[in-house]
């Protein structure tokens, strides 16, 4: 089982250099971070503390978007190469397949984002180490959360663009859904009021290793991780009814 899991990860990593999406994502990330850093440094009257807070929030959004950008093409390409049904003829199952993909893109996204974040926050903005540490931990779960949503969206469609819109909509709903909770009757109201992803991240930006926040991102990520498996199971071999 683990061998097939690691075979998928190795395959994903070998394919990455030939695909333009990761390079594009890293390029956009570096450019965006550089740009925001310059803007922050040019802003008069901004303290290091405020600048760090803005930088962390900026990285929060970047982590969500890059997780989505990295993970979505992976499933879409499997569909385009007609490999999805073909692989499932063999011993591999949906659990291994989806988990290996999410694992790969979670860690890839986390590694790139954390590296950039540590360089900018510690070396340029002189942020305290404990804040950088909690944020880096937070980015790991945030990467899992965004990659799971990206993979889930891509299992539902055959188009990268549609998947981006779908994943973006889900992310937005979870981020601002709490504001809309008043529109729903109880118990939906209570459930929706919990949907303030950014609020769950705020303690981490203050150097507090919030278990509640970490659990929020992990549990939502796990939910979409499981949904992706279910969707793939339902779709299995449906595309090959070629009468």
């Amino acid at each position, binding site marked *: 089982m683990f061998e097939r899991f690691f075979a998928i990860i190795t*395959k994903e990593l*070998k394919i990455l*250099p030939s695909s333009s999406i990761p390079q594009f994502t890293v390029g956009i990330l570096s450019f965006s971070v550089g740009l925001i850093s310059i803007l922050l440094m040019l802003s008069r009257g901004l303290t290091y503390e405020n600048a760090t807070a803005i930088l962390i929030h900026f990285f929060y959004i970047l982590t969500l978007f890059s997780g989505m950008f990295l993970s979505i093409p992976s499933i879409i390409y499997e569909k385009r*190469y007609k*490999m999805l049904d073909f692989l499932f003829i*063999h011993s591999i199952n949906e659990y291994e397949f989806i988990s290996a993909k999410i694992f790969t893109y979670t860690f890839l996204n986390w590694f790139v984002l954390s590296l950039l974040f540590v360089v900018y926050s510690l070396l340029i903005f002189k942020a305290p180490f404990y804040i950088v540490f909690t944020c880096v931990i937070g980015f790991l779960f945030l990467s899992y959360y965004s990659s799971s949503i990206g993979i889930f969206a891509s299992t539902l469609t055959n188009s990268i663009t549609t998947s981006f819109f779908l994943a973006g909509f889900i992310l937005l709903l979870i981020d601002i859904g709490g504001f809309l909770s008043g529109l729903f009757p109880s118990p939906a109201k209570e459930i929706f009021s919990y949907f303030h992803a950014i609020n769950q991240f705020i303690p981490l930006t203050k150097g507090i290793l919030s278990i509640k926040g970490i659990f929020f991102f992990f549990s939502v990520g796990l939910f979409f991780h499981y949904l992706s498996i279910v969707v793939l199971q339902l779709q299995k071999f449906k595309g090959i009814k070629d009468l």
Partner: protein
Amino acid sequence: MSRPLIEIKNLSKHYGTKIALDKINIKLYKNEVVGLLGLNGAGKSTCLKILAGILPPTEGEIYLNNEILYSSNDIKTNDYLTQYKSKIAIGYLPEFISLYPELTIKDFIHFMMVIKDVPKHLREEQLQNAIKKTHLEEYQDTLIKYLSLGYQKRTEIAQTILGNPTLIILDEPISGLDPRQIIEIRNLIRELAKEHTILLSSHILSEVAQTCDRVYILHSGKIVKEVEKGQLSQIENIFMEATNV
């Protein structure tokens, strides 16, 4: 002839009210190349997918060496995919190219070996064997996307022989190939038949006649004619007659 290696009895596949296969009977003998010939939509791919363990049949029986491999009376449709595949090793070449263009031939075959659960100690030997048999030695470290269609087909065929399958199923193995590539793939199929039993589908009459030992003509989901080796030279007339074209 001796007893068949694989025997299919009264195999049917229904998609709702539409009948894709209607109680077909097929016998496959060891080291034979058997062709399924039919018009588009005749049910060739459906039949091959059932035998590959991709699609569950609606009813029928499949025997391996006279021992029951599948019976619609005993196995629920949902269990077909796992139960059938656990009893027989099959190599399958899909109709459309299914490859990772960004992997090299060697990496792709190695990946497929892991996915097919080929034991670790056999992998290097099987990798070399598959590459040698399909004459891909020169290109084994080349990215698949840089290969011609003929070599991409060879790479796909190379993955079908991993795990030493009892039956190799080739769905339209020569579609889209130029004449030279067709001859090369035909020779390759004949070579593979020395060690495996091969079932292939095609709608190209001349090709089937030249590659196969026996041919089943499939029309509207039914086997309408079985053509023996001696009759293959008249395949065109037999096909026209059988399908009423």
